[in-house]
Structures are given as structure tokens and as C-alpha cells.
């Protein structure tokens, strides 16, 4: 899977699961946590999605609001744990 394919996959999931308002535009750079689109409790389901989809294990210490704050930063984090 290319980097852009990974980003698209995560972006589609975020839009489908966390964004209720059809008029909101989410890009790779849109702040997700700090803008309140994804709250800290919901971050756990996003983490489970990433671990399931990419067959990786992200240590709790690395699953920080900063690391999950955009599709770009999420994919960068995932990349560190892909074999």
C-alpha cells in the first residue's frame, strides 16, 4: 500500500465514523483532536482501527493526541510500526 493509499484509507474512515456534518471538509492536514472532531475517548476506536487494518501494535505511550491530530501524523505514526 502506498503512502497516499494509506492516507486515503484513514481519511475515509475518519469522515465515515466521526464527522456528522456533510458540509465539513476534512483533509490530510485538518486537525482532528485539537479541533474537536475526534475526542480523546473516541481516539481509542481510531487506534483499534489502525491496529486492525495495518496489523500493527501501537504502544499506548505513542498514541498521543498530538500523534493522532491529523491524517498525515497518523499515517506517519503507523509507518513507524509497519514491518
Amino acid at each position, binding site marked *: 500500500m502506498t503512502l497516499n493509499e494509506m492516507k486515503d484509507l484513514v481519511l475515509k474512515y475518519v469522515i465515515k*465514523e466521526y464527522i*456528522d*456534518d456533510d*458540509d*465539513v471538509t476534512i483533509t490530510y492536514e485538518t486537525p*482532528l*483532536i*485539537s*479541533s*474537536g*472532531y*475526534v*475526542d*480523546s*475517548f*473516541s481516539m*481509542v*476506536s481510531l487506534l*483499534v*482501527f489502525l*491496529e*486492525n487494518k495495518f496489523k500493527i501494535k501501537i504502544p*499506548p505511550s505513542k498514541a*498521543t*493526541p*498530538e500523534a493522532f*491530530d491529523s491524517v498525515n501524523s497518523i499515517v506517519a505514526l503507523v509507518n513507524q510500526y509497519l514491518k
Partner: protein
Amino acid sequence: MTDHPTYNELSRDFSWSIAEQELEYKPGGRINIGWYCSDRICLKGDPDKIALYYEGFGGVEKKYTFNDIRLAGNTIGSYLRGLGINDGDRVCLFMDRIPELYLSFLGILKIGAIVQPLFSAFGDESLFVRLENAGTRAVITQKKHLSKVRKIRAQLPNLEYVIIVDGVKASDLEKGEVLFNLEKSEPVENLDIHPTTAESPSVLHYTSGTTGQPKGVKHVHYSLISQYLTTKWVLDLRDGDIYWCTADPGWVTGTSYGIIGPWSLGITQCVLDSGFSAQAWYKFIEKHRVTVWYSAPTAIRSLMKAGDEIVKSFDLSSLRHLASVGEPLNSEAVIWSDRVFGKPFLDTFWQTETGSIMITNFPGMKVKPGSMGRTFPGITGTVLDPVTYDPITENGRAGLIAFKPGWPSMMRTYWNNPEKYKDKFVNGWYLSGDRASIDNEGYYWFIGRDDDVINTGGHLVSPFEVESALLEHPAVGESAVTSKPDEINMEVVKAFITLKPGFTQSPDLELDIMNFIRKKLSPLAMPQAVEFMDKLPKTRSGKIMRRVLHAREWGEEIGDISTLEND
């Protein structure tokens, strides 16, 4: 070194009339929280003082003077009256922490209607049960939350108006939906404040219990008396302070101490409506020169996790006083804050039902890290023997935290549920549902809940509600919900389920179940772990033994399992 009166000085000859006199309230007279929080501050000579600094998503910044919030409250109140909203009607606030939330709170109270604040992250099922129970006549919301309201609207015959405060085109409105833009509305200079008195209902907050649906906790305008005085003494707010309460007004802290307390004292407060990040929070404190900060242990532990180095990047020298609420504040957090901020977070204990702080650490009091503190003056508290319900007189022995009824902000009933309300009292004591011990100096030490309610990040989640919602998932046969330990949130929801025939456990199914609950109830209620089981532990009569699962998660003794069903 302290300029504060001692605990004994404040307790001596204490009477709630101290607050009545300071607020110039005469028993039997009119008392309206909306008026006290805005008009009165203007009449006292501070119309141009900043009441609210607001920062929202995408860097939006706004500020409002006390005259601005007076006018906004009038304008919203007048608009609601124009729709036919009357005193006693329930008006729900279902919004993020945008200015309209705070300003509508005042407007609703000014016309004598009852504010029903609900957490905007609630899913449609959570929203429905609360609106249905309250018989809510109007919901004030935002476009981003409209889809959840629309989904349940047809099942709510009492809900006449859905008022949207932003972003919807008139052509997109459905029947019963109206658009209200505060900034484009003509400010209403004079509004006839509804002549509410002490026992007039004011705020209806919902809270979760072990069994049954959430309960609507009814408060009255007289609650102002204890909210005012506890804000002044415990949060130590003074003229010139910049105050930040990080709680969402969907929960009681966000209204008692995020609106009523500070504004009735004429204090400037700040609101940051964005997700949590240590950097953003410290930047906010630095930028607004926050002096008093009221937050929650979950947030404090998250800041601890972010480390000490980041603190050094910001000038936080404006901070004068820190307090915490929502769940027990662990001693490590108290010691950490003292080290990095130069002052400890002082723990406070109270509940939706109590309406104001009951057990607390006062500025000037000796702080015992890990202790909840002592009862606020005027509050008679004890711990009761769990069997006899008699007060325990031995120091250090665990019992049920209980209070003598009669403080001003005590709930008046559970909405449409007087039986549950009666159940909260035994032998003339109000039972808090929490357990603690009291030491030889009168300090309370928290032990835990006395029921199965889960306190996650300072918010109560009913295992019953989650179990019921789980059963609506097509794959779930049976469900049991308990808590599991969590480093940041103290505890989080964990679900144990059996699957219906034809379904197979998988990581994707686990995620699907998590998201199902998150959308239906709320992110707080979402199980952070799902365990698939062949069968759940049950009594021989078929009742699920939640405590067996709880004990396993927490590494505790399982206790008596003589009634456990055998294979």
C-alpha cells in the same frame, strides 16, 4: 503567609445568610440566576468588564462584556418567549462550548424556563431518553448536531422547536426547525425577567445510575446561594481574576462553576472550545493570564503524561490557585502540580445532585495529598455504616458518604421519578453513593463507588445503559459491562459479550461494537475493550454477576460465588 481565613474561622457562626446578604437577596423575594449573572453585575457598575473570552475551533476568538451577555440573554429570552416558550418549559442546550451555549443559559433562566444542558457528544439514543423524560419543548443546537436531533424528532411529540444557531440555509430547514442568529438579531435592551423565587426550577441535569434510565436532577434558582459562596471561598475568585473552568456545561461542573458561580461574582472567565492537548492548554493559560484554574484529574494526568519539559516553554506565572473535581485526585497529581506549577491542585468533591461543592480543600487549609478535604462550612457530612446506616464514629473506618439535607443547591427531585429520589435518603441522610473514611482531623479519604456506576474521566456511565444498548447490536447475544483500570481516566468501560449464533469473534467485530455504542450513547460510554465469552457468569436464577467480572478486571477477591451457576 496566607491571607485566607482559616477553616475554623469560616465555619464559626456560618450561615447561608452570608451569601444572601452579599447577593442582597431577601428570603421570600425574587431570585433569578440569569439576572444575577448579568443584569446585577451591570447595575453594580461593571457593564464594560469582560465576562467571557472565547476561543473556538479554527482560531475563532470572541469576547463579551457583562453588558453584552445581559443583552444577549435578553435577546435569546425574548426570542424564546416569541415562540411561546413559557416558564417551567424545558429548553435543551445541545451545543459545543460556543458562546450561544453560555448566553442561551442566561436567556432561558431569565424567562423562567428550565435549562436542560446535554453533552453535545451524546449519540441519538442518549439524547432521546433525556428529551423524552424531560418532555422538552425546544432544543437549541448547531448544524453539526442536527442530524442526531432529526433522527429522533418524530418520536418526541413534546418537542415543538429545534432552534439552530449557525450555518443552516433557510431552505434546508425542516418542519419545526427555526434559525436563530444571535449576531444578526436586534439586541433587546429591556426584558421582563420572570419573577422566579427560591423554589422555582432552574436547571435539569441528567446523571446515570446503576439501573434504569438516566435521572433528571432538578435544581432551583436558590441554588445560586451555595454556588456563589463556594465559588468565592473554595475557588477563591476575586475581582481582577481571570478564571478558567475546563468543564463542559453539558455536565454540572460546567454550569455551577462554569457559568453561575463566576458570573454571579462578576468574574471574567475564559472558554476554550477545542480538543485536549497540553500545548494548547498551556498556551491558553499563558495568553489569557489565567489566575484560577478549575479542572479534572483526567486532564491533570494527561498533562502529567505530556511531561515537565513542555511546561517550561510557557509563562504560567499568572496561576494563583488550582482546583480539581470529577473523580479522586491522586496524591501523585497533587505533588506533581505543586512541583511544576508551584502550587497544588486542591481537590473538591460534589455531585450533580448536590449542585455545589460539599467536601473540599480550602485555600489556606492544610493540604493532605490524596485526601478529598473537609466538608464546606454549613454542610453536615459523615460516613454511615453500610448495614445500619448509623454514622461511624471511629476514625479511618470506611463507610458511605452522606450529608444532612438542607443546603441551598441540593436537588429538589428526580424529574418524573420521585421514587428514585426517596431512595437517596436513609435515616434523614442523603446518600451520595460514594464510600470514604474520615481521619482524626476531619479529612475525607475516598475509597470508591458504592454501586456499579462507572466514573470515567469524571463522568458517570451506567453499565445498565451500555448493556441495554449492546443488546441492540445484531451480533450481541448477552452483555455485561464493568470498568477496567485506566492510567488517565481512572477507569474505562469494558464490555463482556456472548455472540448470537452465526457470528464469529474478530477484531473488526470488536471495533464495530465499539463504534456502535459510541454513536448510540456517547464516546464516554464506548467500551474501550470488548471481551468475547462463551458464557457470562450468572447466578442460578440467571442474573449476570457483574461483580465477578469487575473483580477479575481489578485483581480483587471475587467474594461469595456460592450462587454462581455451574456448567
